[in-house]
């Protein structure tokens, strides 16, 4: 019973964060800030949803359990934690190399562009 509730809560929390990521993707001003929403939102929400599934595998609604599937889902969580930030980083770098100009805020600076201009 308690495991069921935890699983449902985790999955619903994951969905809420997915919503935040999707709205952020539309509303943020440029490519780089959109990657903030896409890169981070997806990491945590994927993690939460998969964790919810894993806990559901420990105790199905009919009381049966599948520990092997639980371990496999945990492995998926580990790989998401490793690969998602790396992919975000690779996309940011590719975007910069491709010449997409970042939007810089009023009191902001662009240290990378400043350093590139130096010989």
């Amino acid at each position, binding site marked *: 019973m308690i495991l069921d509730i935890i699983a449902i809560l985790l999955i619903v929390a994951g969905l*809420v*964060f997915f*919503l*935040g*990521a999707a*709205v*952020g993707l539309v*509303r*943020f*001003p*440029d490519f*780089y*800030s959109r*990657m*903030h*929403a896409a*890169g*981070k*939102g997806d*990491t*945590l*929400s994927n*993690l939460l949803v998969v964790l919810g599934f894993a806990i559901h595998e420990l105790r199905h609604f009919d009381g049966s359990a599948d520990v*092997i599937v639980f*371990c*496999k889902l945990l*492995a998926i969580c580990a790989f998401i934690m*490793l690969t998602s*930030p*790396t992919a*975000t*980083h690779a996309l*940011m*770098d590719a975007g*910069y190399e491709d010449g997409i100009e*970042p*939007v*810089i*805020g*009023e*009191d*902001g*600076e*662009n*240290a*990378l*562009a400043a*350093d590139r201009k130096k010989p």
Partner: protein
Amino acid sequence: MLYRLLIFALLMATWLVFSGLFDAFHTTLGILSAAFVTWISSDLLFADRKTTLSRRIRQAGRMVHYLLWLLWQVVLSNIDILRLALSPSRMKEVQPRIVKFHTGLKSDFEKFMLANSITLTPGTITVKILGDAFYVHAISKHAADGLDGEMERRIAAIFAEPEPKGAEN
């Protein structure tokens, strides 16, 4: 030798979890494959064999502690994004910038961990690493101020431990 046993055990555990079959035939296949892989490529994992195993275990313990802290930071980061995205008044706070800082971390693995951790924490993404300079895209001034080096200290603390004499890589 101890390292080979450890690698064999890790490979075997992975095999068992991913196959899910525990009969004699499949387990024998697993033992053969794990032994073969350990034999031909065990030196790819844990490059520095001079580090004692007990030190590795202590590092792994601190690593788990760090990952739990990181997970909490990831939750904070997502709440931050959620609030920025959903409330109209807070869109004004989105003032992106790219800041630069130098790190004292030496090994590639530590830099990799720092870069990934920065990407996962509130409002900051690593764009580029050139030598020891990190270029970080921050979504607001508040997020850029958060890069005060606490994360770097924590990562350095995982691996920092007086090296035994002569064990310098």
